């Protein structure tokens, strides 16, 4: 019990004093996971919509692959991104291993199928004739896609939350491709793992609480946007 109380006290202290190291770690977490989520939105939403709207042989297989991807184990992603970025690996020449960019890449790989899968489901749950109705109203293809996105905005915001939530709390891939280098590639999750293994439970709890608060506030904002749009 003391441990937890101490941890909360320490966390409070670290927060109100804007401890530079903790702030740096938090800021990097936000930057890495935010960028990864943005990339996953760009790819996930566009590919998700394209797959949802097109008909091609083998679509079922593609959809089931995307759905499987929604549950990609971060450690496996970390492994393959590490291999790819390894000095002798196919992308080794980029020299990205153990950099925040590598973490963004790995997290984007984790978040993209999540966003894609939810987008796919969101577009497919719209009435099939809605597309015809939009085209019959004189819309261009581009306008039709835009209207469909607006119609599916509630589940799409859920996709944003799920994608971001998936990567901000992810640790395996980040530690493997980022290396948890102090002041450079250390994020909230990797720092928590390290502090816990060192027995610094107070710091670990502090970081954990920050992580929770962060996830909570981001989702609070998105939920607010999601619910605001609902007319009477």
């Amino acid at each position, binding site marked *: 019990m003391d441990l937890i109380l101490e941890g909360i006290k320490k966390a409070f202290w670290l927060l109100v004093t804007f401890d530079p190291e903790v702030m740096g770690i938090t800021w990097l977490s936000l930057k890495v996971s935010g960028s990864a989520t943005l990339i996953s939105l760009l790819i996930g939403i566009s590919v998700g919509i394209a797959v949802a709207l097109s008909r091609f042989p083998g679509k079922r297989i593609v959809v089931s692959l995307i759905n499987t991807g929604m549950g990609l184990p971060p450690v496996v992603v970390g492994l393959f991104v590490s291999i790819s970025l390894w000095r002798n690996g196919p992308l080794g020449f980029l020299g990205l291993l153990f950099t925040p960019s590598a973490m963004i890449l790995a997290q984007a790989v984790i978040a993209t199928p999540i966003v894609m899968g939810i987008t796919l489901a969101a577009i497919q749950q719209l009435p099939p004739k809605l597309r*015809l109705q939009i085209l*019959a*109203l*004189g819309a261009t293809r581009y306008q039709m896609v835009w209207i469909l996105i607006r119609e599916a905005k509630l589940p799409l915001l859920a996709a944003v939350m799920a994608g971001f939530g998936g990567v901000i709390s992810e640790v395996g891939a980040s530690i493997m491709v980022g290396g948890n280098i102090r002041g450079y590639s250390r994020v909230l999750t990797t720092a928590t793992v390290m502090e816990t293994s060192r027995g610094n439970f107070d710091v670990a709890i502090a970081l954990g609480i920050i992580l929770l608060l962060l996830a909570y506030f981001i989702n609070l904002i998105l939920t607010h946007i999601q619910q605001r749009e609902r007319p*009477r």
Partner: protein
Amino acid sequence: MNREQNIMRSFPILEARDLQVKRGGVPFLDVPSFQIGSGEILSLIGPNGAGKTTLLLTLSHLTKRVSGEILFHGKKVGSDFSIFEYRRHLAMVFQEPLLFDTTVFNNVASGLKIRNMEKGEIRRTVLDHLDRFGITQLIDRSARTLSGGEAQRTSLARAFAIKPEILLLDEPFAALDPPTRESLVEDLDRALRESGTTALFATHDRMEALRLSDHIAVMNQGRIIQIGPPEEVMNRPVDEFVAGFVGVETILSGKVIRKEEGGFIVSVSGKEIETVGEVPTGETVALCIRPENVTLSASSSKETTSARNVFQGRIAKILFLEFYGKVYLDCGFPLVAYITRHSLENLGLEEGKEVKASFKATAIHVVRRKAK
């Protein structure tokens, strides 16, 4: 042929040739030629799966077809001008309202926003059309909270707001309850006549079709079987399928046995029925008799009637409908008659009783069986 004359009366706004749609190799739609005149209201009637929806979607370039071409104002769609441009002259209303998840105002405005219309003009147009369909009070309501009738009014207002040259309606009232449907049909009728919009209206309700249309096309199995003015389709169906679909209750098969003055006699199950026209003796024909053209009187009645065909029959069954009774007779051949509830009581008709049925020779529509 009548069909050509009727449709050629007005300038065809839309023409189609050799339309064919296949799904999985199976022909779904086969319409060698089709036209609709400017300002005309044409109903497509037929059972489910007859190809009504497919025809509408094909004509609006919303579904893939195997062959054929579509001409709008005489210009070929897809080459003389683009499919997209063509669609901007159309509007479509489906059975489901398919409203967007926003307010009624924004829904009605959606087609105009797509066209980048100026804001003030959008507002004016939307208000006009909300008023036209009696939904001004719903302006700020979320489309999710509307009743079926309100939603379909919004959908109609959205379609009319873009001032389409051709409006395609795919069973827009099929999911509504009768009173709502009644008032919507009335509003649609008025809106179409006021705006002079050409309309293609798919329905499986022949009363709706009769009410709205200048012409009716009967479809079955992907083909247009008959097309013509309502009274022609109702009273002179080209075959037994159309006859059955337009409400001819009695279709009798018989053989022409001899000529009469101005007509001929057909033998049906040993009874002789007199009809007008000219069909060679020996040919097999189908006689179509609409139930409203059959008169019933008490079997003892000595009243003389001008009707040439009078038969004694036994009542096999009486169906009580809203305003009238439907009487199934056995006169040696089956015959169906409508009778008002009042007369039903006056004549004391009930199942098993004998009754006299009469119908005029001119009330019979003869379909000649095609030689096989």
